[in-house]
């Protein structure tokens, strides 16, 4: 079964608005990562947040992590049409076989110009 679950499954916003995507997971983790995928091919790493961190920023991206709720959120501020893509969270569990990156089902974001 998948470790991460994102919501919403799909999100449509206007350019300039903020987009928030959420990810929930099941087991304890070493870190949580967010990736972006265009056109159903290779994924691109966006940001990694460790289990002892609560918030991290990278440009227009802000990621939060709440290990007590086993959840994370990705905020994209001032969205652009070029941000249209699918976004996935991935977790590295620290139970069982560590190092195995498990991905959620993803959120499809559409930013309308």
């Amino acid at each position, binding site marked *: 079964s*998948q470790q991460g679950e994102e919501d919403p499954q799909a999100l449509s916003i206007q350019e300039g608005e903020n987009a928030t995507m959420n990810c929930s997971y099941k087991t304890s983790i*070493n*870190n949580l*990562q967010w*990736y972006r995928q265009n056109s*159903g*091919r*290779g*994924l*691109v*790493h966006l940001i*990694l947040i460790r289990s002892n961190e609560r918030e991290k920023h990278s440009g227009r991206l802000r990621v939060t992590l709440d290990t007590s709720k086993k959840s994370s959120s990705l905020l994209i501020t001032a969205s652009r049409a070029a941000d249209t893509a699918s976004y*996935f969270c*991935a977790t*590295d569990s620290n139970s069982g*076989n*560590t*190092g*195995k*990156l*498990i*991905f*959620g*089902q*993803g959120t499809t974001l559409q930013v309308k110009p």
Partner: protein
Amino acid sequence: GAGVSQSPSNKVTEKGKDVELRCDPISGHTALYWYRQSLGQGLEFLIYFQGNSAPDKSGLPSDRFSAERTGGSVSTLTIQRTQQEDSAVYLCASSLLQGAEAFFGQGTRLTVV
């Protein structure tokens, strides 16, 4: 190389034939991952390697699927007696250390007819 390379990029095969998918990871990356993605779906974990060994093979869908990695570098994913439900994009990723930022190839789109 500059990035993760997968070959072929597209493969059409007849039901019942065997196929071999290849992944060349980034030089020096010890961890290597294989995922499968059906259209519009999330990434299904198949297997990962730490060096040449595979700590977790639990994601392989059936005994028709196998993977190996030699010399801590190139990996091949073999699907025997392909079925139509095997049709998907097969993605490979590598990372410097297990659980760290993963770099993805562009995938192999497999179509079984």
